[in-house]
């Protein structure tokens, strides 16, 4: 493929995207006049784009919204369920965390009390008779 053909294919791509500049368009037009292969490719590509553009829009059935909503209401799906579950999970975690901290503090206090009590006993030991 010649360099000018490569540029023409590139320009045809821009044309398909509706993004073909004026200068590029003129160069493509000039090239297509003397290159049969590119002219044929351009014609086919224009036909493809035209074919896609000719497809009319289809409209959903009138009762689609009602059908969707009825289907959702009848099913077990309930909105916000996940959010509520997450919220519940967060609270459970918080309560468990608080309980953990409480137990930790209680254990720490017990240890401190035990250590202090032991030191106190040791301090009093020489003073005891015998």
């Amino acid at each position, binding site marked *: 493929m010649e360099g000018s053909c490569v540029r023409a294919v590139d320009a045809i*791509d821009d044309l398909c995207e509706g993004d073909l500049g004026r200068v590029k368009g003129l160069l493509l037009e000039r090239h297509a006049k003397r290159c049969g292969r590119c002219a044929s490719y351009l014609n086919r590509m224009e036909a*493809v784009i035209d074919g896609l553009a000719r497809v009319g829009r*289809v409209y959903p059935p009138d009762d689609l*919204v009602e*059908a969707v*909503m009825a289907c959702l209401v009848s099913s077990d799906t309930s909105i916000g369920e996940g959010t509520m579950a997450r919220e519940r999970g967060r609270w459970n975690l918080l309560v468990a965390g608080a309980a953990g901290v409480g137990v930790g503090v209680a254990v720490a206090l017990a240890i401190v009390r035990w250590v202090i009590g032991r030191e106190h006993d040791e301090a009093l030991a020489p003073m005891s008779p015998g």
Partner: protein
Amino acid sequence: MANTRLSRDGREDARLVKRCRQGDMSAFEDLVCKYQDSVYNIAFRMVGDREQARDLAQETFAKALEGIDTFNTRMPFRAWIYRIGTNASIDHLRRRGRCRDVPVEIAMAAGTGAPGDNRYGVVIELPASEAEIPENVSVSNEIVSLVWEALEELPEKYRAVVVLHHIEGVSYAEIGRVLGVPRNTAKTWGHRARNMLCESLEGVV
């Protein structure tokens, strides 16, 4: 996936999603009303069957509601719902094994695209000036028919790009978000899809 700056429309959708999460079913109904056209169109253009498109649209909204808590409200809802819809259609096509049980029917009657019409097929709207010339009509119909037959043969993801970009007018950046690929990949798929469609017209145009 990077967060994007939401448009006014996107912010409105995010508000509806937040209301939805608080249990407001009417907010979800608003979203269904807003996106039913596009979701149904994408499904119909992907599978080519009105009844199946209707089922797929219902499936899409049911999945959206089911996963509403996982949706990132800083991302556009449109891309998210298109993603669910496109994936549902692709899964359906894979289940169907790409075998068409319904022939493509070129419907020329003006009422073919009307709601409630259950005929299968492609709706073609010809400009009045061309429609008056029988020769032009037959040539155009043949081309459109060939393009649609070729579209049916495209790999699902290529077909999705063509439907989203050329029929729904979605940008490649958004198609990238919908299909979960970079923008340039979506653009490349679009380019390849057009070339494949173009090949189907060899010897005709």
